[in-house]
């Protein structure tokens, strides 16, 4: 006696291939997606570098820095005194511009601010997280040039971020500040070239050694 048992095929011949494909593909995606994401955050684009930030006033640093040779600290006057470098008040803009360019179209927001008494809302270019307590005064006062973090502002039509501003980048300097420091007379110099035999940075570092190390967490986070 012969019994034939016929069961409908549950799986098509391609099922194994599909299953394998799904498993391999899934695993690949599981690795690939995070890998791409982790790669992406490490790129300058993710960090907002080299991205011209639109401003309410078409302020051109090239004209003011290179053309008119105005010192950084004329407008960013608090950089040597306190944590925030500060932006000029509307009145400060007008102090120079009352004689020139005042009626030009790009100055409209300035005129409006002056009339209404409402501040000009500048877009932030260099943004640190709220838990970072960066202090301009101590950096400027100890030989970190403006250019070191803000780049060649004298060549920028619109200010942009040029350094990563990641914690690793900060620590690169905090671990060994010497080679990146410059004499206090050269703080605002754009395109400063360090003389090969310069030891002023090392000297500045030595002066501060008795105070504290720069890699303590509470140097920046508190």
């Amino acid at each position: 006696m012969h019994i034939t048992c016929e069961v409908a095929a549950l799986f098509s011949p391609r099922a194994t291939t599909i299953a394998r494909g799904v498993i391999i593909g899934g695993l690949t995606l599981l690795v690939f997606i995070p890998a791409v994401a982790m790669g992406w955050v490490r790129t300058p684009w993710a960090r907002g570098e080299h991205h011209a930030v639109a401003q309410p006033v078409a302020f051109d640093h090239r004209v003011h820095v290179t053309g008119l040779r105005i010192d950084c600290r004329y407008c960013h006057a608090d950089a040597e005194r306190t944590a925030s470098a500060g932006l000029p008040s509307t009145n400060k803009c007008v102090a120079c511009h009352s004689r020139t360019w005042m009626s030009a179209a790009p100055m409209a927001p300035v005129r409006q601010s002056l009339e209404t008494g409402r501040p000009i809302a500048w877009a932030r270019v260099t943004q640190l997280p709220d838990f970072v307590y960066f202090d301009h005064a101590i950096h400027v006062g100890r030989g970190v040039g403006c250019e070191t973090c803000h780049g060649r502002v004298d060549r920028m039509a619109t200010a942009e971020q040029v350094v990563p501003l990641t914690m690793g980048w900060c620590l690169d300097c905090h671990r060994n500040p010497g080679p990146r420091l410059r004499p206090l007379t050269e703080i605002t110099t754009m395109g400063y070239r360090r003389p090969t035999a310069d030891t002023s940075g090392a000297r500045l570092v030595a002066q501060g050694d008795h105070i504290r190390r720069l890699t303590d967490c509470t140097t920046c986070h508190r």
Partner: protein
Amino acid sequence: MSRRYDESDGTREFPPGVADPPAWVSRRDFLTLLGAGAALAAGACMRRPDKPILPYVQAPADVVPGMPLYYATAMPLDGYATGVLVRSDTGRPTKVEGNPDHPASLGASGALEQASLLELYDPHRTGAMRAGRRRTTWGAFKAGFAPPALSRRVGARGAGLRVLMPPTTSPLTASLLERLRETYPEARTYFYAPLESPARIEASRKALGTALVPQYDFRAADVVVALDADVLAAGPFNLRYAREWADRRRTEPSAQLHVVEPTPTPTGTLAARRLGATWSAIGPIAAALMDTLGHDARPTGHVAGASTASLAALTPEARAWVSAVAADLAAHAGHSIIVCGERQPAEVHVLTSAMNDALGNVGATVWYTPPAVLDDGGPAHDLAALAAELRSGAVDTLVILEGNPCYAAPADLELSRTVGAVHNTVYLGAYDDETARVSAWHLPAAHYLESWGDARAYDGTTSLIQPIIAPLHDGRTTDEVLAVLAGRPNDSAHDLLRDAWNRQRGPGARMDGESDWNDALRRGVVSGSASARSTPAIRADAVAQATAALAARGATRGQIEIGFVPGRAVHDGRFADNGWLQELPDPVTKLTWDNAALIAPAMAARLGVATNDVVTLRVGDRALDVPALVVPGHADGAVALAMGYGRQGAEAVARGVGVSANALRTSSAPHMASTVAVLPTGRRHELALAQTHWAIEGRGSSIVGEGVEGQRSAASSVPPRKRRPLTLYEPNPPSPDGFGADQWAMVIDLDVCTGCSACVVACQAENNIPVVGKDGVMKSREMHWLRIDRYIDGPPDDPRFETQPMLCQHCEKAPCEYVCPVNATVHSEDGLNEMVYNRCVGTRFCSNNCPYKVRRFNWFDYNAEIAETERMAKNPEVTIRARGVMEKCTFCVQRIRDAQMASRLAGDAVTRPVVTACQQSCPTHAIVFGSLTDAESEVSRQFGDPRSFSALEELGTVPRVRYLARRHDGDGTDGAGGRAR
């Protein structure tokens, strides 16, 4: 030694409820939410939001964003000024600190001064002027209440006009009231504050012939006796007295403090000899003390016969206290002070003056000045008289200038009803409270940080009050309203003050006046404005009368008394809407977010009640249900009930917290009532008691440093311990430059710490510490970085109190650091135990491993829900912590880094002195902070003090916070014999 006197009944490890899973989410729901949360988090990644930079349009001179400015002003409380310096960050007041130039502050600031900052930003403050139910304007008020219009209602001579305000010392207010009297001779002004008592002035009128208040110099006192007086932690000059007492005690360790009081206070916990006695028993004790001293204690220190009739009538404990204290006083005649509590009857004040006189203290440690408060003790301070006038219907217009009298008045006056019946009531008040409700007009009051004005300190020194910020709610000051009534409606408070200032200095001194004015504003005090001292002779007949009156009255034996005491945090209810203060544990009872009927353990046993049992207090025909709180050291037969709770106004924080003691107060017995019935109800009300949650496993002596070799504790059986025990922890890695950098450390002197808790609120203000509410405290989730621990030792009716501020000990071998899986808590080069919020993932391992239990976890996003105005109170130099991270004391690292940067920029060789927030506020300088690398620093010196010890030293954590053990007095140093321990 224990945290609770009844600790043996429950050594539970955790308070109930903390280990239960949340009821509102099941495991399945949790996993669902977890998945959804992860998906959302992945999908929500985007560039961080752009925040614009808004520079000034016209930069104000002196203001540099990021560099705070300090302004001197003064906070009035019950009329008396305390000088403060207020930090202003680009126009926002962010911190209140003491003013070293002000006599009431000497650089210190109390919990109330610190917390007044939050009051400024309170979102529940009245936002709009109101007439009836309609909004109105200041212009409309001026039109209706300036003289021509006002005269039509109140009569040309003002017969229908009454003004009610809290007691004031302000010269400007006085001059405006004078002007009001000229305009309306028949108008009358009344002053009322629930805590003030006319007894002191009444006594001085009788005994000294004129109205005078006593002033003390604690720096010259070797013996201080406080009769129901919390002199070191309450009252207008408490910061000064605490500072002076601590200074004396430091230089002269045998200086002694003796206290008799009904309910334990911070002053009492510091006493060498402390006696619990009911309010009415204080008088007989004072009489016995005087009899024992004799009237000729000067100059030989002769003690009269110790078996007088007045002494015999006392309890044995009181007799022993009186004999010992009298001997001590007599031995230090001319170098002692006897202080009488403000709310004791006039007779006790007379006896106190007589004893100070007999001991030769007057002229040395005690002198008198005219009272700074306007008409102090006079008829204008009689609220009952005003209530009678209101009831008679003769008053058309009642102007109430702050003080919320409809809440604070004794119940028998039924002021809410009476005021509601007045035709026209104007209320100037900060809140839509009980008084605002029954008033036709409600004007928002300006906070003192928004006001121009002036006020005098307890010794008469005048301070100018200057605004640090423009009024947030269009608030007005008392002076501005008075000016409207007096016919100067268009003058601002600044104009009025300037005008009064110029007039006072005469016409010729205009130019000089300008520099004087600026100087007074800058320093916060007007030079040379203190009242003249006087040392009048005492009238013997008044003393005899007082003694006779006390003898006739006698103590009310066998009856239960109730005393209405100031709420330590909320005062008379003025600060009831202040979360910082509501959550501030009482220094002795550790109670938060409630008031309770405080009773002695023996009395609780007799009545069959325990803590949390609701009892009915019945005084006459008035009854009140209050939860009981058993307090060791409380006088038997006495119930203490704090005022300022049970508010029914519209303030969301204050509303419904505790019960109102005013329901039991009557105008004839506003501070104390005898014959109260205490009846158990069988109901319970859970009180939120901080610190008492956990058992301390018998480690008490090791925590408070009992038996430390420097402590003069001959009777102590605890052997001195070794200084540095063996340890399994690895030693610190050697730092590259050895001890070259700063090494921060703190020393806290338990011998002078009163437990006043000013440091707790100062820390909260400086470090943006949130408030968690009553539920949070009950689950021991309070966030205070610095807490005051209180331990009790000895018999429950006469315990010894130990007070210990506890904060992150910044251990050199910190147990928390070894267990953090993400390195979120690490050690800095300069000896700080750092907490890095942006690394913390909230495992709470560190908190579990911390033997001091000083780490706090953000269970919720406490800062997300606060009002916009409250955000303005935040210190911009400290991170606002989010949910899920651990936090703890940082040694005010923001101040350290600031000082280091300033020193480095200025090229200084050493770091400038750093003052932490707690240290700055401390009235007794009990907290010292500095660097151990400076061998000359105070902290280095105190680190090596024989009294210094580390809490739980045997654990080998090597804390950077050391304590100086409390010296227990009377251990055979002065021959008086100490208490057996």
